[in-house]
């Protein structure tokens, strides 16, 4: 479906399946069914080297370069040139430099990668992808860390590649780029093919309506509208955030929508004291507070359920019991006296409330299923009896049945008067559960919908994709 000499854009919401599709092309994942045709022939791509031999090259979103090596060494990893027994460093340097010059990149082949800026590293990634004899280049959000000037030079490269009959798959969230560079665009949603359109025959409204429209499993839930303001964030600013301001009311669920990297998790981290803001204020119950570490935030009644629960939420090698009680040790350990009765009571109460399926509270968390691990994380925070809960993608990687359990729990907590910030990439989830919705775009909080009634996925997506400039 990709033609030689064409730029084909691939779009879709977070988790629509763009990256998965590309990883199959790259041979990182294998597909269960279906086939890949190149020039009309079925090819099997078992690993990345097979992909490269087919002339498919990748520019990944995250930079994967060996930091301690030079640009030339990075380009030649796995295929170093030798003269006799030894590396032919001179030749490799010379060819690399020629290549960089050809691309119009202001880089020296002998520079160590660790000394480069992020944008420059991205350029090296691009140079590496174009280094091999490519028939198809897949670019996954290549411009996220580039300046306008660098984007222009990347686009100039893309034009040049097109002339050389190289096909390009261009994955991006940025509408203006898609309209500037792409010839055709394909939209994916929930892993399904939605449609392919010529870019000249489509406008932004149409594109957004293709991207959204995931099925809402159920009617909107009756959520409380919230009372008085409990927390206020004013102009939070750090390297990820640009003057983020919002307020949170008692007993409401404030949904945070936006694309990956829009700054939602970063806002949560700033409030929770993991990545404290450089400037800006946080006002809690009318008092100015500073959270320098999660410890401060927890003391003030704020807890965060991190997105990556294995990395941040659980100590998987230790028992359910240990994990559950970690934030509330002070409730039953005084000095050297452990009140085991209180400890058991806490565990009883929360482990059973959420019906965690386990062999016993002594079981290590590593042996639990994803849904049950998530329940342990939630239980441990509920035991801390917080007043504000921040949930970062609480249903990621969880099956549908367990999802509904978690929705019910979130609603129940809000009904009890807890204030909840719900970060989610699934718009239906946001629409279903939120009292109000905040939309972020590239580090800014672009829009707060004061009511959810009558708001469509398209409207939210519009702000998430475009910001408010256009």
């Amino acid at each position, binding site marked *: 479906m990709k033609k030689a000499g064409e730029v084909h854009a691939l779009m879709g919401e977070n988790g629509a399946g763009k990256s998965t599709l590309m990883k199959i092309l790259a041979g990182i994942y294998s597909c269960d069914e279906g086939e890949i045709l190149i020039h009309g022939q079925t090819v099997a791509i078992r690993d990345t080297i097979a992909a490269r031999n087919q002339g498919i090259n990748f520019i990944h979103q995250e930079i994967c370069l060996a930091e301690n090596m030079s640009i030339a060494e990075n380009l030649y990893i796995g295929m170093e040139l030798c003269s006799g027994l030894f590396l032919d460093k001179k030749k490799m340097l010379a060819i690399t430099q020629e290549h960089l010059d050809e691309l119009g990149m202001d880089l020296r082949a002998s520079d160590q990668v660790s000394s480069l800026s992020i944008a420059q590293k991205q350029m090296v990634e691009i140079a590496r992808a174009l280094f091999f004899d490519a028939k198809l280049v897949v670019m996954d959000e290549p411009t996220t860390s580039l300046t306008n000037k660098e984007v222009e030079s990347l686009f100039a490269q893309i034009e040049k590649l097109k002339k050389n009959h190289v096909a390009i798959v261009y994955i991006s969230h940025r509408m203006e780029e898609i309209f500037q560079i792409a010839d055709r665009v394909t939209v994916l949603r929930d892993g399904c093919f939605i449609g392919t359109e010529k870019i000249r025959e489509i406008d932004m409204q149409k594109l957004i309506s293709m991207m959204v429209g995931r099925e809402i499993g159920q009617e909107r839930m009756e959520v409380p509208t919230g009372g008085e303001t409990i927390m206020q964030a004013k102009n939070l600013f750090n390297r990820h955030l640009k003057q983020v301001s919002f307020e949170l009311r008692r007993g409401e669920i404030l949904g945070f929508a936006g694309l990956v990297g829009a700054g939602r998790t970063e806002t949560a981290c700033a409030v929770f004291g993991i990545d404290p803001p450089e400037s800006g204020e946080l006002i809690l119950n009318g008092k100015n507070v500073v959270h320098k570490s999660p410890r401060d935030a927890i*003391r003030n009644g704020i807890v965060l359920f991190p997105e990556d629960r294995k990395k941040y939420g659980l100590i998987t090698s230790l028992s359910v019991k240990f994990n559950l009680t970690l934030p509330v040790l002070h409730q039953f350990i005084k000095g*050297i006296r452990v009140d085991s009765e209180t400890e058991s009571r806490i565990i009883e109460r929360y482990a059973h409330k959420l019906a965690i399926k386990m062999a016993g509270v002594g079981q290590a968390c*590593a042996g639990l299923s994803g849904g049950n691990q998530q329940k342990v994380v939630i239980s441990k925070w509920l035991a801390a009896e917080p007043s504000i809960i921040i949930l970062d993608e609480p249903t990621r990687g969880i099956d549908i049945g367990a999802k509904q359990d978690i929705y019910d729990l979130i609603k129940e907590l809000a009904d009890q008067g807890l204030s909840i910030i719900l970060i989610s990439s699934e718009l239906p989830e946001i629409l279903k559960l939120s009292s109000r919705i905040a939309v972020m775009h590239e580090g800014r909080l672009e829009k707060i919908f004061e009511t959810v009634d009558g708001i469509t996925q398209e409207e939210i997506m519009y702000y998430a994709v475009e910001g408010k400039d256009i």
Partner: protein
Amino acid sequence: MKKGTNKRRGLLQNAAVSYIKKNVGILLAIVIISTVLSILEPIFRTTANLTNVSRQIVTNLLLSYGMTMALLIGAIDLTVGSVVASAGCIFITAIGAGIPFAAAFFISVLFGCTTGACCAGILNVTNLPPFIVTLAMQKIIRGIGYIVTNGKPVQIIDSRLKVLGSGYILGIPNPVWISILITILLVILVNQTKFGRHVYAVGGNEDAARFAGVSIHSVRLRAYMISGCCAAIAGIILAARMYSGQPELATGYESDAIAASVLGGVRFTGGNGSIGGVVLGALLLGIVNNGMNLLNIPSYIQTMVQGCIILGAITIDSLKRDKKER
């Protein structure tokens, strides 16, 4: 009243059962090796020899405790050997200078705590790897010992040193009493306090511990201070036994401490191990060394045997873990 005591007994029994279960491998090894040694060399089971073994173990046991605290939080402390030497030198020099016995003891222990605090402080500020930082500190701390003594061993005669290093209460050497006391304190600290749980949390998953509101810096500081303190006490005892402070003493003792910890079930990845296990680790190493001495096995063979024991122990441990996880 009666019900309460019953319950307590039940708890103690449970604790004993779980202790034996957890350490069944090393307990078996100790029993088998002791039996074999008793048969091969009857001197082994004499009271005099067993007393001797217990006294020899003390130094390594105390160092292993410190090492274990560092390993439990996912770090390492290579300074313990140097702290032994320097704390001993400071202790003897202080007494020689006329400082009261108790004060000299206190100063040396304080020195140990300070070195630990320095290591933790550097780690907290710089985020450098613990291996490198404590390796550098190892040299610095040993240097302090040389400066204090002017590079030569210092000797004094003092009857109180004899009581501390070589005396007995109820037929048990005083150093052993001290180590029993420290063992009890540490078992309580690790199992009964918030700090103890935080230690396991930090070692198990530093990020998750931080997210749960644990102060990594404070846990690290305290763990290293305990390590320094234990090492200093070991140094004082050793110096008292020899009536001298020797700056070149205890070189390489950190590797014995690592060996005893690992034998006792402490994992290098952090968050896993117990004080009770380390006691057995140090005991096993002590018995093996004593047995090889009694059997007149040359010292270089002894070193190799120690290496083989460590390798064997961690291999068995990792095989067990693989099986469990599958």
